[in-house]
């Protein structure tokens, strides 16, 4: 199956019709023109087959057809009349096959009820089916009608086939020179008690790091959400409880590139709190959310509060967390714009997520800071079904943010271990492939990254593995804090805190989930 063309089905139809339908019985020339009006303007709700199709694929050349269909997609006409067929009046609605999911939840998605009149080709029927499928609770959902009490009256039958709704969101097994092992998982039930509520939890636990003063790490999350269709006033509600008890490592000696755990001392921090959020889908592409976050923090700093520099001098260590008890309280607004053609193997569209978070004494926190973060991914089609992606990230913090709210090098550099449930277990600096000052930067107030990714489809088929892309990504990242923006002495490129990052691997979309097998995963996250 081939998908992902930029033109909409409507555009294809217009193009096909404009191409000059040479014969009245349905022959279209292959060369489409783009602007000819359609005599049968399709309804926006009319379904269409949009799949680009390489029509001339023969057995001899099928091997090169995996997704080069985009080059010569045949126009996909639409079905134009939603009024074909008999008209019914719904006398009753019967739901079958739902052993776990509440009937009321299904009825709420239908958009049709007893007393409504519908036509056999009513677009609401397809829409209802796909709304049910989009709940994520069913493998299939079907609508049909049976004769009612009188001619024209029908009983609307809704038959669903439930699926497992347990989702493993993430696995965290990994290892580093500082921490022999850390691991855990994040699991959700997307249809808790059959009520459509998403409830889940995650944990990560570590062995005791071999950093002076460090303790075993434990992170816990409990998260739940009520979808918009069930929330008050059409709002989605979410809540997350968090507990992190672990160590962060601060360099006490050695060069910036030296990852020896013996050259670090640990700050032990315990965080407990949560996030309450409301969200709303504004349009098909836009989603907005508001989050309130509160945390109680207790930090124990190491006795060694200064770093011995390579030249023998010492400098105080900024731990970026208050010793003893403190609080974090913030308000965050997030806007999410998503038009990607597919969330796993996109070929077109974009996703942009912007978050503004602010906290301080005004909302009950000990740390006054503001944080802005924008992340964007843009995909464009290339010949032969390939895709080019651009990923951009930019963020800035003003004020006094605790270290765990600052930008962390492991979250930016694909080649480093990233944080698990907000906790770091490694002492690795950035790889410093450009010979800059980046190794000095672990937690910072400013961060930026630009990645270019090229994806080649290697797998499109029915069966267990639906699709797979080989991908290669390369990019540049940079981190800085206040003092880095105006370094002493003359400008030199090597003074810029930037580094290269890259990845190479396979992204798989399968019946049992989504997997990325890549060099960076192996180096950093050990995703299996």
């Amino acid at each position, binding site marked *: *199956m081939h*998908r992902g063309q930029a033109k909409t089905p409507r555009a294809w139809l217009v193009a*096909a*019709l404009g191409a000059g339908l040479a014969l*009245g*019985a*349905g*022959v*279209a020339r292959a060369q489409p023109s783009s602007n000819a009006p359609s005599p049968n303007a399709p309804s926006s709700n009319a*379904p*269409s*087959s949009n799949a680009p199709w390489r029509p001339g694929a023969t057995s001899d050349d099928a*091997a090169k057809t995996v997704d080069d269909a985009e080059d010569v997609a*045949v126009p996909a*006409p639409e079905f134009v009349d939603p009024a*074909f*067929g*008999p008209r019914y009046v719904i006398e009753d609605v019967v739901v079958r096959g739902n052993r776990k999911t509440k009937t009321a939840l299904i009825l709420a998605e239908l958009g049709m009820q007893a007393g409504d009149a519908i036509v056999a080709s009513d677009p609401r*029927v*397809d829409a209802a089916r*796909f709304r049910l*499928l989009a709940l994520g609770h069913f*493998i299939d959902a079907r609508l049909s*009608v049976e*004769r009612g009490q009188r001619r024209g009256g*029908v009983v609307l039958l809704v038959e669903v086939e439930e699926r497992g*709704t*347990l*989702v*493993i969101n*993430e696995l965290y097994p990994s*290892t*580093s*020179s500082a921490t022999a092992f850390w691991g855990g998982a994040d699991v959700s039930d*997307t249809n808790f008690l059959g009520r459509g509520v*998403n409830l889940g939890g995650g944990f990560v636990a570590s062995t005791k790091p071999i950093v002076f003063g460090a303790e075993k790490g434990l992170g816990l999350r409990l*998260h739940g959400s009520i979808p918009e269709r069930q929330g008050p006033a059409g709002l989605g509600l979410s809540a997350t409880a968090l507990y992190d008890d672990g160590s962060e490592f601060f360099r006490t000696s050695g060069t910036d590139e030296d990852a020896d755990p013996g050259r670090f001392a640990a700050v032990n921090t315990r965080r407990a709190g949560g996030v309450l*959020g409301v969200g709303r889908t504004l349009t098909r592409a836009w989603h907005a*959310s508001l*989050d309130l976050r509160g945390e109680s923090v207790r930090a124990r700093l190491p006795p060694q509060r200064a770093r011995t520099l390579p030249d023998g001098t010492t400098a105080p260590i900024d731990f970026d967390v208050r010793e003893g008890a403190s609080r974090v309280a913030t308000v965050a607004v997030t806007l999410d714009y998503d038009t990607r053609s*597919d*969330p796993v193997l996109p070929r077109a569209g974009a996703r942009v997520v912007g*978050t503004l978070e602010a906290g301080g004494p005004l909302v009950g926190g000990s740390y006054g800071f503001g944080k802005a*973060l924008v992340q964007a991914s843009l995909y464009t089609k290339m010949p032969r079904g390939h895709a080019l992606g651009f*990923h951009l990230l930019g963020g800035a913090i003003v004020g006094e943010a605790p270290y765990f709210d600052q930008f962390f090098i492991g979250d930016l550099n694909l080649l480093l271990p990233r944080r*698990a449930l*907000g*906790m770091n277990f490694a002492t690795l600096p950035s790889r410093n492939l450009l010979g800059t000052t980046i190794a000095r930067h672990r937690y910072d107030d400013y961060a930026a990254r630009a990645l270019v990714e090229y994806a080649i489809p290697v797998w499109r088929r029915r069966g267990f593995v639906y699709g*797979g892309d080989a991908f290669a990504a390369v990019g540049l990242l940079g981190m800085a804090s206040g003092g880095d923006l105006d370094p002493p002495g003359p400008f030199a490129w090597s003074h810029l805190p930037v580094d290269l990052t890259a990845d190479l691997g396979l992204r*798989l979309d399968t019946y*049992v*989930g*989504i997997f*990325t*097998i890549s060099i960076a*995963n*192996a*180096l950093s996250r*050990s*995703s299996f």
Partner: protein
Amino acid sequence: MNAHRPALRLDLALLAIVVASSGAARASDEVPRRTTGLALTPAQLVVSVGLQDLFGPDDRERLKSGFVTRVLVRVALQEEGSSEPVAIAFQRTEIVYDLWDERFRLRITRGTGPDVHLDARTPDEAIARAAALWDFPVVEAARLRPGAAYVVAFRGDLNPISEEMLADVRRWLVQPARGQRRVGTGDSFFGSFVSIFVNPRIEDSERQLRFVSQRFELRQVRTAKGGHP
């Protein structure tokens, strides 16, 4: 770094296995050939072939759902060795079962031609009318070059859906808690390096059928008796 080596080996091994097996996957993706009736009317090349196997047993059952079943057949003539179609054509059909008259109502449209309304008494008859092409015009005969080799490619879709709807459903299935997973506090935007769940495939149509005709040249095409039906 040494601590990462076992994981690196595992990933590289899996990478090699998947890349190696992708060749086998491609081989299995070959589009089959199906013998197709070809004829020349005075003006057109017409084809006759059946796509009734677009309907599976469950799809036959659902014909009586009382709601419309849609069939889209797309046909493309292509010169062998070229990726550009010479001509394309399509036929769309809607089938609905009348619960009270107990017969199938069909509306068939070829390209921008007029709608043709038909009745069918049985599912087989309805399927044949929707999915079998009889003397289906593909291209003006004058556009065929003597000596050139052609194939006709066919694709049938049962109940196609829109690209936007497909993307939405996929997005909701893969990210059921959109808006809940706030990025920027230790999460990675490039996200799920592993996410395990029952991930049903949602196609852009419920069933698809693709095949190509036998290779042919203009001189091998018979002249239709009586011209275009």
